[in-house]
């Protein structure tokens, strides 16, 4: 749907367009008239040159006749410059008709005739000067002067006729252009007037209809506005009651937020202390871990020593085997010596004593080697037990090391988590403080809203009054645009 502004702008634009069209046509017509006037002037200049050339030729003819008749040079004064004037006139004529090929051809035909005429003129004049009147008269009668003048008149007449034809043609063009300009201005003006009247009628009827419809809408809207103002007044009272309850709730919320902020502050403080304790524990665990690593190295050293001891014990066992073998062989030798001594009777009795002692000695050595073997076995068993126990201790140390690593890692995690908890508690504290601040602002805002509600309540009555005035105003507007309808 077009607004009034658009409609007015469209009407004015159409009028402006018509004016522009009329102006353009008139401008072009005036321009055509100006151009045609220039060419008319130009044609008159060509005619003027033609007339001038004819006059020069006529003056030459008259001067010639006067000089022949009288023989006085004064009659030749008008034609003293004819040799210069005629070529200059021809040149100017050629320049003026440079855009006309037919005139140029005619001028081309004119120039030899002028030259011949000047030669004939000078010849007759010279005859008069030398032969006298009779001779010159006879030469004049028998000469070509008359014929050349006739041809020159005819050529100049052709040029003049062509220019007169162009003059008539341009007069017609001027009349045509003037007629078109007159028609355009007349019909354009009529068309504009008709359009302005039609547009005015259309705008008036449209304005009356739309404004009337709008006024009716305003009237019905003002009635609705009255009803809405009544509802708003009721709602505003309810809103004021609700605002009071909200203020109480916000006061409680503010108190709770402050308590939360204090609790969060305590949590942050405890978390800080926990971080310090956890860092101390982490330090202790690291020192313990270093001690366990030292124990681990010592245990490895003990295991190596024990294994070396086991190897040495094995070597001792090997040596004991040799000693035992020697003891056994000694024992056998002593038994055989005893047997031999027994076979020797009384002679071998003292030898038998020595052999017996050797046997006893070998028995003792054998017993000692058995005891040493037992001891070595005990040592090897103890070494094995110690190695096994040390291996177990080593594994326990490894497990302890791993557990200490896990404990250290746990402490690190605890430190990280407690730091996170501290940050979170601080954030909670900060957020709760911000929340308390925001709640205070909300409290103030709610107070303002309550105040605004009261003001709204009072303004609702004013709105109701305004709506009534608006309804009355709409009725007045209706009377203005449709008197018959209100009547």
């Amino acid at each position, binding site marked *: 749907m077009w607004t009034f502004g658009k409609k007015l702008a469209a009407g004015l634009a159409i009028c402006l367009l018509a004016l522009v069209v009329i102006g353009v046509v008139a401008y072009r017509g005036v321009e055509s008239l100006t151009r045609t006037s220039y060419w008319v002037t130009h044609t008159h200049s060509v005619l003027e040159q033609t007339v001038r050339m004819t006059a020069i030729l006529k003056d030459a003819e008259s001067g010639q006749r006067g000089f022949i008749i009288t023989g006085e040079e004064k009659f030749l004064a008008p034609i003293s410059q004819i040799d210069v004037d005629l070529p200059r006139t021809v040149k100017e004529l050629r320049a003026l008709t440079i855009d006309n090929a037919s005139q140029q051809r005619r001028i081309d035909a004119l120039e030899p005739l002028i030259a011949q005429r000047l030669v004939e003129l000078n010849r007759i004049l010279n005859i008069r000067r030398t032969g006298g009147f009779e001779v010159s008269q006879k030469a004049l009668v028998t000469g070509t002067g008359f014929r050349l003048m006739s041809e020159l008149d005819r050529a100049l007449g052709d040029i003049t006729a062509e220019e007169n034809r162009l003059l008539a043609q341009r007069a017609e063009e001027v009349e045509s252009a003037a007629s078109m300009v007159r028609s355009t201005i007349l019909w354009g003006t009529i068309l504009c007037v008709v359009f302005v009247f039609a547009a005015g009628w259309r705008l008036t009827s449209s304005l009356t209809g739309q404004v009337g419809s709008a006024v009716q809408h305003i009237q019905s809207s003002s009635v609705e506005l009255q009803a809405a103002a009544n509802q708003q007044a009721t709602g505003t009272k309810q809103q004021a009651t609700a605002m009071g309850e909200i203020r109480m709730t916000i006061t409680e919320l503010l108190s709770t937020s402050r308590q939360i902020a204090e609790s969060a502050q305590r949590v942050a403080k405890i978390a800080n202390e926990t971080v310090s304790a956890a860092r101390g524990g982490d330090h202790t665990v690291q020192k313990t871990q270093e001690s366990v690593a030292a124990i681990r190295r010592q245990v490895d050293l003990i295991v190596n020593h024990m294994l070396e001891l086991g190897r040495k014990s094995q070597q001792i066992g090997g040596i004991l085997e040799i000693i035992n073998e020697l003891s*056994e*062989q000694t*024992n*056998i030798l002593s*038994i*055989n010596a*005893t*047997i*031999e001594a*027994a*076979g020797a009777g009384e002679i071998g*009795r*003292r030898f*038998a*004593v020595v052999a*017996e*002692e050797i*046997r*006893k*000695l070998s*028995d*003792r050595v054998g017993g*000692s080697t058995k*005891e040493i073997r037992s*001891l070595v076995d005990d040592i090897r068993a103890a070494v094995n037990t110690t190695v096994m126990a040390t291996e177990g201790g080593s594994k326990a140390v490894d497990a302890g090391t791993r557990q200490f690593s896990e404990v250290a890692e746990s402490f690190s995690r605890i430190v990280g988590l407690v730091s996170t908890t501290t940050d979170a508690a601080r954030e909670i504290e900060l957020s709760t403080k911000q929340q308390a601040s925001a709640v205070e602002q909300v409290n103030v805002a709610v107070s303002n809203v309550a105040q605004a509600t009261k003001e709204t309540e009072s303004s609702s009555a004013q709105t109701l009054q305004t709506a009534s005035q608006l309804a009355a105003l709409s009725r007045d507007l209706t009377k203005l645009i449709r008197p018959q309808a209100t009547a």
Partner: protein
Amino acid sequence: MDDDDVGRKLAELRGAFDAAFAAPPPDAEVAVEKFLVTRSGGVAYAIRLGEIGGVAVDRRATPVPGPLPELLGLTAVRGKLVPVYSLSALLGTAAAAALPRWLILGEREELAFAVDAMDGYVFGHRVDVLPSSNRSGHCPETLRLENSSMGILSVSSLMKRIANRVASTRPLQEH
């Protein structure tokens, strides 16, 4: 065993060794016989030193076919070939098996008895040698020791029995 025990034992050994040279020779009337104590088939036996010619150990016996299953083979002792018989098999306490470690040579080294172990030798007083209840076996006497008693093996009886068994089997084999 601690250092005190070792020192005490060393002192005992030194004392016993010195005493052996300090004490007079044993009385012939008191120590009348010497016995070699062996063990075969789990039974301890005493053998008079006068009946044996020596003791050898860790010898290798080459198995040879023979008339008696108790024959374990032949071995070399002091440059002579000696047949080796299993004492436990001869006494019937165990079957002949691998060659035991110890060999007891006969008086003239004509044969050897293989025994499992050699426990040493003891002095037997006359009052300690008692007649055995089974006088017809190879142990006609019993040697009574301080804490135990054992049969006194008769080497000559064993050798005689072997000779008899060899002699009894030879004619049949010759046929």
